[in-house]
């Protein structure tokens, strides 16, 4: 029993959830500068500079080209895959003047209207969404 209780087993389980990227150390490390860059948009003067020239602004951060392209494209699923964290990326939603619902809906493959209709109907059911290996 004791052997199965270490951090490695714990972490392996976190990868078993459909459509979900848990913000583990590995992702935190990969996305470090991406997230720090997104967080810098909390300052109004940085938001202005970002809006004036997005590419120039993000070139100040030591991110990978892939991360930069995904950020310019507002491809949030890709950003999550590259170590982005949603609370940091939400500063980009605000900068773009879109709501959290709008931003989040872009990751689901639904239109905002479809996503909102799903939420009004009680949200996405956990059935079939719990585990990749158990398919439940």
């Amino acid at each position, binding site marked *: 029993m004791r052997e199965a209780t270490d951090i490695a087993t714990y972490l392996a389980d976190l990868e078993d959830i459909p459509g979900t990227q848990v913000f583990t150390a590995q992702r935190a490390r990969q996305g470090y500068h991406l997230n720090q860059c997104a967080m810098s948009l909390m300052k109004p003067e940085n938001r202005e500079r970002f809006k004036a020239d997005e590419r120039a602004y993000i070139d100040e951060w030591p991110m990978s080209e892939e991360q930069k392209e995904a950020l310019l494209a507002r491809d949030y699923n890709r950003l999550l895959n590259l170590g982005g964290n949603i609370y940091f990326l939400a*500063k980009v939603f605000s900068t773009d003047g879109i709501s959290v619902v709008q931003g989040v809906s872009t990751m689901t493959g639904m239109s905002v209207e479809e*996503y909102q209709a799903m939420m009004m109907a009680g949200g996405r059911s956990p059935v079939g969404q719990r585990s990749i290996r158990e398919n439940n």
Partner: protein
Amino acid sequence: MARITHGIGCSHIPVLGYAHDHGKDGDDYFKPAFAGFDWTREWITAPDSRPDVVILVYNDHASAFDMKVIPTFAIGCGESFTPADEGFGPRPVPVVEGHPDLAWHIAQSLVLDEFDTTIINEMEVDHGLTVPLTMMFGDVEKWPVKVIPLAVNVVTYPPPSGNRCWALGEAISRAVSSFPQDLKVQIWGTGGMSHQLQGPRAGLINKEWDNRFLDGLTGEGQDLRHVPHIEYLRETGSEGIEMVMWLIMRGALGKSTRALHRHYHVPVSNTALGHIVLEPVDPTVPPSRTLEGGSPIAQKMIA
């Protein structure tokens, strides 16, 4: 002596702050969400139940803490805390006044009790802290309570376990009851309930699980302290993990509780809104096993 009179659980959904600040809380969409706080707003300002201080357990959402420093438990010991600019200007709500005397007392007691707390003297506070204040007190010139922020890492994995959170609550109860001033203290656990803000699975809601969780907060049961992180993630969405913070509140209430009020509403934005007001029935918490002073040598040194 100070004592913990009640615990409150409450989601801290940012759009509720927005709705309140822009006078939309009467709109059809928001009305049922806010209506469930009418009872609490009356109760919490009544002379018998009004608290002097609230220990407000919440998480920072990349506002005060960036990736440079990630404390597991951080207790705000400062004089005051300013609302953060989360990307569209700070919320137009009063500055939050702290209670440094009690906060430092708790922080010091926790370290002796072998909780490895981080002390914070200056920080801004985001919707995680200000939205629950708005839900409870509405539109005020000045918050009618002092607030001790207790920030918990639930963003970078792993967050503290449910058991550790519950145990922290027990230690907070011991610390509060050794504070000499006569104060009514409430503890609030915030965040949740089920929600997921990321990826193709975003929008997940689990009413059954959330309501079982609310059930589990009352009575004598301690099953919730053993729910592992992976269960929150699978059942309640990636952001449902915030509910571990409610267990700090529950742990601080002691052996058994009863609910005075309960409210659940879906949807608010991406999230299931939950709210509960709890009263201790038997507030006993276990004695510290670990307090430095509890060692025989330390006892001998203490005259």
